[in-house]
């Protein structure tokens, strides 16, 4: 399966295998933790990691946009990794020339520099309330709203008979919160320990799975 559709707080959310969510009523695409420029940042500091991998990030977003045709894109923080480098340019051009409205919730990896380069067609904010949802970078507890956030890069461990184990990246949904997986390639993950009341949508190269 490439998509799973869920009703959350009365809203229709489509969980896509490319690590993004499409919110139907709002016509918005939600993604988090892209870490653009991470690989080049490593290279600049003498750590030679092939950069081909990071190019897929923008391609993935373009494909998602082509498929869902959203009016808005919400990025829940860590769009950029560390300081400016040339890899940022493609993204800046794409954002500036796009017909879609972008919002960036500032994360820990979005230094002051990103405010300077992100000039047009993007709203920068520390959080955003829309409909029943409160969008943040870090997970927060909210009485009034359902929190959608990033930062954690969640993954879960699965266990089977015969000592079988798997670790998968996931969308992590708990009582009043949804944590998105990291959209960017070349990002790590953190293993969550779910409660029985939580549910997760796992990601693999073969699609999305509900658990």
């Amino acid at each position: 399966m490439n998509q799973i559709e869920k009703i959350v707080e009365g809203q229709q959310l489509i969980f896509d295998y490319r690590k993004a969510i499409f919110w139907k009523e709002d016509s918005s695409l939600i993604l988090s933790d892209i870490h653009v420029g991470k690989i080049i940042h490593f290279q600049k500091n003498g750590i030679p990691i092939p950069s081909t991998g990071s190019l897929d990030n923008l391609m993935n977003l373009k494909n998602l946009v082509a498929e869902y045709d959203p009016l808005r894109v919400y990025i829940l923080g860590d769009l950029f990794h560390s300081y400016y480098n040339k890899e940022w340019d493609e993204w800046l051009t794409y954002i500036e020339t796009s017909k879609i409205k972008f919002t960036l919730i500032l994360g820990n990896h979005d230094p002051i520099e990103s405010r300077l380069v992100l000039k047009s067609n993007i709203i920068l904010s520390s959080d955003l309330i829309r409909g029943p949802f409160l969008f943040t970078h870090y997970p927060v507890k909210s009485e009034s709203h359902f929190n959608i956030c990033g930062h954690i890069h969640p993954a879960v461990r699965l266990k089977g008979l015969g000592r079988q184990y798997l670790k998968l990246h996931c969308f992590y949904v708990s009582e009043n919160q949804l944590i998105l997986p990291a959209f960017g390639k070349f990002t790590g993950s953190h293993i969550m320990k779910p409660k029985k009341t939580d549910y997760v949508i796992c990601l693999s190269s073969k699609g999305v799975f509900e658990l």
Partner: protein
Amino acid sequence: MDKYNLHHNWAKSFFSKRNWTALPFQQETWKAILNEESGLVNAPTGSGKTLSVLPPILWRKLNSHQSKKSSLFCIWITPLRSLSKQIQLSIQDFLNEMCNEFSVEVRNGDTSLKDRARQAKKLPHILITTPESFQLLICSKGWKKKLEQVDTVVVDEWHELIGSKRGVQLELCMSALRFYNPNLKTWGISATIGNLEEAKKVLIGKNDLGADLTGKLIKSSIKKQIDVKVVSTKNIKELPWRGHLGIHLVEDLIPILKRSKTTLIFTNTRSQCEVWYQKILSSCPEFSGLLAMHHGSIEKEIRLWVEDAVRNEKLKAVICTSSLDLGVDFYPVETIIQIGGPKGVARFLQRAGRSGHRPDQISKIYFLPTHAIELIEASALKKAAKKSYTEPRIPYVFSFDVLIQFLVSLAVSDGFKTHEALSIVKKTHAFSNISDYEWEWILTYISKGASSLSAYNEYKKVHITEGGLFKVLSRGIAMRHRVQIGTIVSDNHLNLKLLSGKRLGVIEEWFISKLKKGDVFLFGGQYWELFQIQQMDVLVKKSKSKKGKVVSWMGGRMSFSSYMSELLRDEIYAIQRKNTYPKTLKPLTFLIEIQKELSIIPKENEFLIESFKTSEGYHTVFYPFEGRFVHEAMSHLMAYRISLLTPISFSLAYNDYGFELLSDQFLDVNQIIENNLFEAIHVKDDLEQSINASEIARRKFRDIAVISGLVFSGMPSNRKRNKDLQSGSQLIFDVFRDYEPDNLLYKQAFFETFEYQLEEERLIKAMFKIKNQRIVWKNIAKPSPFSFPIITDRLREKLSSEELVDRIKKMQLVYQ
């Protein structure tokens, strides 16, 4: 009088004051050094190895031109920091009496900043150091000038270095020194290993034409007599079927400790060390204050104190790990106890040699089996000690990670020209066959980054100046490189500290991550309560509790050598022959009876496979008795071949006796037999496929990524600042696999897996042997005694041919 006599008389005056005589191998070495030769001295610990090389090196200097006497002339390499002090003391002893114008100092990771700063200005005449600190010297500006008077490098305990990447690191550094000082002499000191001649060649390097430089191999005729005793418990039935702590035997141990002046107790793991310390103290409280512990995670001051206390006869016993394996000369030690299987004959004999530290004394070692099956091992070790056979240690080759680290070191200090560097590199054993392609790749890699960096090339590491000099210009890169050198690759370590800030040692992150505030654990013989984790520090306070978790370390596991496996098989087959039933195995009879009842004891012409079901799933256990590494390879190979027949997922476990394939489906062994899966053809191809399907190479890549500088673990003083440069080696492994599979560092992970881990040749031999054996398949109702230690092992590999989707469907979330 000839030139030898003058020296010999001088050196012997030191000996005669102590009522020692210079042994033939010592005199032979003296002569060779006076003749300006290089070489390797093979002598057991405690036979006066230091004095076999030291006097003539000093003599040559004493008789040389005055102007050359002011600077460093001898570098003395030791593999372990804990050895440095002892060597310094014995050299100082000689200097005080014979030539006090020379100085000797230590420089290693334990050296204080103050001493380092002083040494940066003026080095001593003799410098005792480790391979890592040696490379750091080469990283400093003007190193050629500082080291230009060095005429001899002595490598102590070379056998400990040769089979590791540190050996390669040392080869490169020595070759660099030799390049700028062609008259440099190299002397190694080594315990007995199976390939001494090769060890000598690797040590002294090659000439411009790629031929080995000449050198002498001097063997002492001293045969250490070793007395092996097996400690068997009064009630053998209490020996568990598995379990490696062995603490139920503590009462049997106490009388041995009481009888002997000083005892070293070797355990195989640090956690075992901790537990034994507690148990001995609680069963024998009068030892309080006379008992100490020594292992790699304990703070260095405490370790040094323990070493001193042993020398000064202040301790009754020390419980230690391989941290005390090497040649520290502990004269008062009378007895050695080995708890649990030592895995190799060489290691066992080496440990035995820690006692009876005079050439003429008998070494006494007690072996204490921790589980029943180890009695078979004990019996085999007794035989090995009699035959005095030892295994070879295979030198590493083509370790490109180490080469990259070395070249960047040269670039950090004074820079290098490629033809010079190539000449240095080619004269080492490790890289004598490096191809033009590989060399060019490495140069491109450090100067321009990997081949697929083209998109936005902002890569910066080594700069090529107009004159063609490879040089690191960025201070940040230089600093990070120095920090990274010689990082002993291990799990992320955190500092263990008291609230007052006093450091207790280091602890692995994964262990601490399982604990909550207020949890109590055992470390350094004390119970501690976890107070707080602050970045890289774990703050604790003393706990009054007498119970707590035992800190465990994931450290590498050892495998039986082929020789040890052979001895082991002999013992097992002997069980079947009534008249040869080994006496040492008598206590095992009851267990052997259970094994026979449930299954069989295989004969020489039989190959045993057992199948049974438990709550964990379907177990199939194979018994080739070939040692852990061969079993690791064979389990991958078999799992892969079976997975081609049907979609199936396996969890793999192995020990020195056999291996297990665990699955959620029943495995029909007849299928294996009918499809000829033990066939010894296409082994290499199949093994390659299975390695791709599993995660061994991925784990090997961890060391490689750290050594070559792909993974940066942060500055010791300010770990946080470099957080945006940290990433996991696993992530990088995936990127290479997907985008740059011809990257030499990525390929090295596979090469190393094949060459040093899986022992393909031994595997093929073992497969041929199985082909000529009769396969006996036993479907049994419950685990047999033979299978028990294997199926309870928690360190496992996995291999699967099932679709991911199908696997996920059968699985469940791991909940809190």
